[in-house]
């Protein structure tokens, strides 16, 4: 599914900003990783952040979810200043923000079912087993892995682990999804399947997403808008088509 097919995906309030980073600066041991970056994610939008490895892409989304705190600037998610939240408020916010890790980060001592039940019982505090079973089945059906419900993560392939990771994140119905290199380490066919799946899930669960990637096919399939990060700064912004014709040599090098 390409960009032209997705014009009708966005919700009516597509102008509402759900994530905003303003002049964010972050350094580690004196090494500047993010240098004064700003971004806005609008409701229902898929924003792809493109960049080489080690340029601060993951740091950017970790600041959004409060795993890292910026040194300067402000990060606002759903109207809340992340740095100002206490532990309880941060946990409440995190329920609304799903984070899919590069590896899927499945709990390897639990079956797929237990992995999916975990956020329902621990985060949403659901107690009704029928309701829990219904949600687990529904989300596993959505990612096409209903048969894997009683398998251990070690029995799953890389693509299946990503699907289960996505299902576990979506099961609490987050408003915003953050994807950390969702197609890394997968073969081209599985990468395409995961990219299509992300798009389908966005449509079904009406999420707004930030996708970190350097997989151009994934970016082409998913992106409504793209930002290119280089040396801690966003150097270009636009749609896939616009950036493809960019004057900037570094930006164009991604499309070769």
């Amino acid at each position, binding site marked *: 599914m390409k960009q032209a097919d997705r014009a009708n995906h966005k919700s009516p309030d597509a102008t509402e900003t759900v994530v905003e980073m303003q002049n964010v600066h972050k350094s580690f*041991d004196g090494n500047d990783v993010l240098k004064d970056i700003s971004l806005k994610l609008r409701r229902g939008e898929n924003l792809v952040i493109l960049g080489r490895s080690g340029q601060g892409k993951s740091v950017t989304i970790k600041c959004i979810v409060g795993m890292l705190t910026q040194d300067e600037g402000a990060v606002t998610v759903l109207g809340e200043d992340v740095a100002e939240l206490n532990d309880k408020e941060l*946990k*409440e916010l995190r329920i609304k923000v799903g984070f899919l*890790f590069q*590896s899927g*980060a*499945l709990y390897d001592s639990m079956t797929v079912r237990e992995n999916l039940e*975990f956020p329902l019982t621990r*985060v949403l505090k659901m107690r009704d087993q029928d309701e829990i079973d219904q949600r687990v089945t529904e989300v596993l059906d959505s990612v096409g892995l209903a048969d894997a419900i009683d398998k251990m993560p070690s029995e799953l392939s890389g693509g299946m682990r990503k699907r289960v990771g996505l299902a576990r994140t979506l099961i609490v119905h987050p408003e915003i999804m953050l994807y950390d290199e969702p197609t890394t380490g997968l073969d081209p066919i599985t990468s395409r399947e995961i990219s299509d799946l992300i798009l389908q899930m966005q449509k079904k669960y009406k999420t707004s997403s930030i996708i970190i990637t350097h997989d151009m096919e994934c970016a082409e399939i998913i992106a409504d808008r793209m930002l290119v990060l280089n040396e801690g700064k966003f150097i270009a912004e636009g749609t896939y088509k616009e950036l493809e014709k960019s004057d900037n040599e570094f930006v164009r090098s991604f499309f070769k």
Partner: protein
Amino acid sequence: MAGEALPGYKRWLEDTGDQVDFFASFFRNLFRGGFEWSEFVRQCYEMGYKSLTLVGVTSFIMGVVLTLQSRPTLVKFGADSMLPLMVCVSIVREIGPVITAIICAGKLSSGIGAELGSMKVTEQIDAMDVSGANPMQYLVVTRILATTFMIPLLTMIGDVIALFGGFVAVNLADSTSWTLYFNKCVNSITFVDLLPAFVKTIFFGFAVGFVGCYKGYNSNSGTESVGKAANSAVVNASLWIFFLDVLAVQITQLLFY
């Protein structure tokens, strides 16, 4: 990176500060509510029941060896009838608790360190945290409490098995009835022998769980750090056991003698 550049004493101070913070965080989460009972019971089973064979075999051998080694000396002084008393007091007061705790440091502390370290490396702890769940409550509180409850229990069982080992060893060289041996053992120990020994095993259990969890939970990224976490968990837990033992002996002397 900066950690490597710091002088040794600063790293030590930093690590001590982190441990104090982790200790406080354990208690904050313990009393926060929403205790993970099912995970606690599972950990008790994994750590307690599954360590029973190891503790039992080691305790039996310990009882046999202690008795066989002590007997010649007591015979020299014509005090071989005191053998059950000596074996019983040694096992109950000191050898039982310390050996059981050391075995558990090797088995449980390293296991916890490696498990949590690997969860950290594969971002499972981060995933739990970022989902809005509480990894401290689910992973750390349950494991520390499980070792704190199970090690005293394992010590008690181990003591009984070690005394039985002593009885077997006595009968290898001599002939004593179980009733006589058992009566001599029971008459030789008092409340002052039992209580401090029991109380210190609670602290040993806490140390084993705490060190394992701290080392695993705070391991760095990279598979190498999993091994390091397991290794330093054993070393540190063992040191803590000996340190707490010295402290317990001093406090017992002050309070009861």
